[in-house]
């Protein structure tokens, strides 16, 4: 009983002593705070990894209007409207409701050309839900879907992607 009494005092003192040593040693360490957004060493967008699922973007010049992304979306936040035109099938709308999107990335996987993809950008908060809708086809315009050139079947997928990337790079300045 009495030994327990003094043991308690001893244990309390020793553990307090150890705890103090740890907390004081923490004081000499470099703080890890990242002072977002103004005092970061580099812009935070640059620090996002390549795969970061932050904001959806569609490269319209290489979109084939296959509707795979619309089908894959579990919450139907993508809506593509296509029309018959004298020149063939055209897209009159490609809207994504980013307020609804849950950033799962399921839409990017079945895309044959990689047209729909995430960009590492996240500072897109807004005060109204309407502004959260990304409209990739401007009002009143029509976009002709991209056609994957027919080539050797084995190479098709790879070359299509490469070509698509080239085309996307070309189209970048306009967008």
């Amino acid at each position, binding site marked *: 009983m009495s030994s327990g009494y003094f043991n*308690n005092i001893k*244990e*309390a003192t020793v*553990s*307090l002593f*150890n*705890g103090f040593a*740890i*907390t004081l040693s*923490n004081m000499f360490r470099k703080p*890890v705070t990242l002072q977002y957004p103004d005092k970061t060493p580099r812009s935070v967008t640059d620090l*996002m*990894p*390549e*795969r*970061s*699922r932050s904001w959806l973007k569609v490269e319209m010049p290489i979109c084939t209007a296959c509707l795979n992304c619309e089908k*894959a*979306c*579990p919450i139907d936040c993508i809506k593509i409207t296509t029309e018959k035109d004298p020149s063939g099938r055209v897209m009159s709308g490609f809207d994504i409701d980013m307020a609804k999107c*849950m*950033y*799962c*990335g*399921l839409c990017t*996987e079945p895309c044959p050309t990689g047209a729909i993809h*995430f960009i590492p950008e996240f500072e897109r908060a807004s005060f109204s839900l309407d502004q959260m809708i990304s409209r990739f086809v401007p009002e009143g315009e029509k976009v002709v879907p991209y056609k994957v050139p027919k080539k050797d079947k084995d190479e098709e997928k790879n070359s299509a992607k490469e070509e698509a990337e080239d085309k996307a790079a070309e189209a970048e300045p306009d967008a």
Partner: protein
Amino acid sequence: MGIQTEEMMLNMGPQHPSTHGVIRFVVKSDGEVMTEAVPDVGYLHRSIEKIGEICEYNGFMPYTDRADYLSAMNANQGYAMVVEKLLGLEIPERAEYLRVIAAELNRIISHILSLGAVAMDIGAATPFVLALKEREKVNDLMEALCGQRLTYSYVRIGGVSYDMPPGFIERSLKFLADFEPFMDEFENLVPENKIFIERTAGVGVITREDAIAYNLVGPNLRASGVDWDLRRDMTYSVYPKLQFEVPVGVGSQGVVGDSFDRFIVRIKEIKQSISLLKQCFAQIPEGDFLGEIPRVMKPAVGECYVRTESSRGDMGYYLISDGSKNAFRVRIRTGSFTSMSIIEKISRGMMLADLVTFIASLDVVAPEIDR
């Protein structure tokens, strides 16, 4: 004796600092000592099971993240396994390893947060922040692996969605090397502290019988002295190829099954996860990360119940397929749900401060209770 006292009814929650989310406890107390604490859940009910009946099989994967957002990877894995079992899919070995790596990293994240939260609820703010600091590093790894920091949706039916990014193994090993001394420091700071021991030892004791009868799972079950781990005893994925120990509560400071044991079991599990990760990194073979999957997933008519060891223990997915593109019924049986149900029984006659300790030590996650 002679003095008339009146029972007081306290509404603890749905917004209360120690409920970690929206849970409500109807507490009847006589001063500091409670007579009863009845949990009231459902504030976060989002009908995930109903959504599972509407979504296609692949489309339900992001929802499993939301079922248990602190260990989304483990939840993903369980769901993928149950669908694969119904479809009869074989998945590549590299994918299995990637899943285990992700799941164990996730276990570290989940446990370290739980440890910090216990310390925080007992009144020490520093361990919580230090724990979050470490969690941040794993989050960075996860973000590099799958692109998200919390709701990963990394696992796909038939494999995983991405391979490891270049340099992932080296970075992870470097993190683990830094993480081990941190765990020692954390142990020095929290569970060896006399006040912490006094506050947790002998508090909220769950006996072995109660733990099984109330179907507690995972660390809570092991802390009560049941030597049971699904990864070892009903093994799945690549766990049979890995060496690890299953920590069990021994009552080192009080009674077996008290809050202190639950805390210590989680610390030991983190250490086991570190060793598991190192083995995985050493063993991981080359190969595909996504197997051959059917274009349209239509499992045969049937049903399946698969249990996996999530951070909060045995997470069961019960799936009934009627042969169509959607599941007929998805049921997610989670650890937090059963943990909550035992609180009413154990908390009788506890002190108010002990209830907070007890709830925190059970590591319940509100969305996992309600789904």
